[in-house]
């Protein structure tokens, strides 16, 4: 599997990351290098093997249905570039 410049642009768009034309080629190269590195795993035959979800034989942790959190709107908004009252404010996102 290899990534071409159209795929780079599409992934950037889906993530709403602004990628300049001159950056595409560099990113394409980096992504392909990562994929080539991971492709080494193809050398192993895993047919009939269940995907591994955890290296430890453990069960999913669960929480009780109790409200233990919240009421920290100031903390939640502390990094917001723009805010009003306790809302995040973002560029208009409706057409």
């Amino acid at each position, binding site marked *: 599997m290899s990534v071409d410049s159209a795929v780079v642009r*599409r992934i950037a768009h*889906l*993530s*709403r990351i602004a990628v300049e034309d001159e950056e595409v080629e560099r990113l394409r190269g980096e992504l392909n290098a990562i994929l080539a590195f991971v492709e080494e795993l193809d050398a192993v035959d895993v047919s009939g093997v269940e*995907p591994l*979800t*955890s290296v430890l034989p*453990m*069960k*999913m*942790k*669960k*929480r*009780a*249905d*109790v*409200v*233990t*959190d*919240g*009421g*920290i*709107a100031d*903390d*939640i*908004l502390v990094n917001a570039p*723009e805010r*009003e*009252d*306790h*809302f*995040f*404010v*973002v*560029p*208009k*996102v*409706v057409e």
Partner: protein
Amino acid sequence: MTEHAAPSKLIKGATGDWEVVIGMEIHAQVTSRAKLFSGASAEFGGEPNDHVSIVDAAMPGMLPVINEECVAQAVRTGLGLEAKINLRSVFDRKNYFYPDLPQGYQISQYKHPIVGEGEVIVDVSPTERIKVGVERLHLEQDAGKSLHELSATESHVDLNRSGVALMEIVSKPDMRSAEEARAYVSKLRTILRYIGSCDGNMEQGSLRADVNVSVRRPGEPLGTRCEIKNVNSIRFIGQAIEVEARRQIAILEDGGVIAQETRLFDPGKGETRSLRSKEEAHDYRYFPDPDLLPLEFDQAYVDALARELPELPDAKRARFIEQYGLPPYDAGVLVMERASADYFEDMIKDGANPKAAANWLINEYFGRLNKEGLTINTGPISAQANSSIVQMITSNEISGKIAKDLIEIVWSQPGDPREIVEARGMKQVTDTGEIEAAVDAVISANPDKVAQALAKPTMLGWFVGQVMKTTGGKANPQTVNELLKKKLGI
């Protein structure tokens, strides 16, 4: 089900009949105190960003921990839908960018949902029941809320709903008319409310529907579908399907083709319109969420939840028919809300005749509640008081007409109906002598009408009315009838 619609459900186009095919995705908010993966409150409303933990705000390094009650609610709901419960399911990330989705992905279930195939029996009309297949039910997170009206150039984001647990219930494309679709949502809502896994409040968005609509010529393969997003009332679901089917038929009859797309229903304009038309096809790039292990439990856990389930609407309806001899329609109306069914049974326990109690509730009390915007829980009359009224009707102590006056009184000034009847002299006159006097008076005062009645026996009704009037509605109508027939010789 791939069977075809009855001819009566087909839509007539300019060039012949069309069949509409409908499937639905219902998003039902899970009833729980805390969110699906955090300890913040799942309660509706609240000050902006007050019900938000750093997990819900997707601060780096935070890990989701599942709320066990949300899991139990999904399993209970699956059981209520007669569905296969999967003892192992997996959470995936559904990736998309939107300002009210701080993680950049929604934690959902894709290939391995917690609940598999099931079935809902839907009462379309008093005489028609259909089965609608359920494809799956999975657990997922709700997104935050964007407000676009507070500013002309900016949107305001509140994450209070971010991370609240939703159940997405996907139906098979088994519905063939707007009416069937409405009935399906209504039945699903009833089941969820019985189980207590969703409050079914459509105004607050606890229950939202995405409706898939396509049309085809009867007997042909499925047509291209359009998805109408986020329809938030049962009435609008019906309207949206009607206008969307008409739109597609018009395009096809003009020789056009349907573009598969997401559309929005505008109830004000009565039309659907394209949404995200400029955007490319969805590419959610699902993959298993590495932060969460598979969700696993054993059959004993499922069995324990099954034992605690309440009697569900279909079983209750069958019991009402069997135990109380109710007509299926009446039983169906009474079990729509668990509270109504309980109220009805309280009246029976208090001594009311079941059929009379059902009649009284359906034809009299529910209508009044509806008119005043009240529910069985908020209405002013207790089950015991309504039971007393019904018992007095059944025993002929009061007439049906007086009963209507009586409920009017009890409605506005609660009291014991029996005492009110006694105090106000509302008891029905069954004393034949007294009624006879009234009958005689009416006959002697109207010789012309007597002559007419002899020629035309349907005139009897006029005499009955007059006698009832002079006795203040308290005469037993049957006695009046019999006496009039005898005296007039009809």
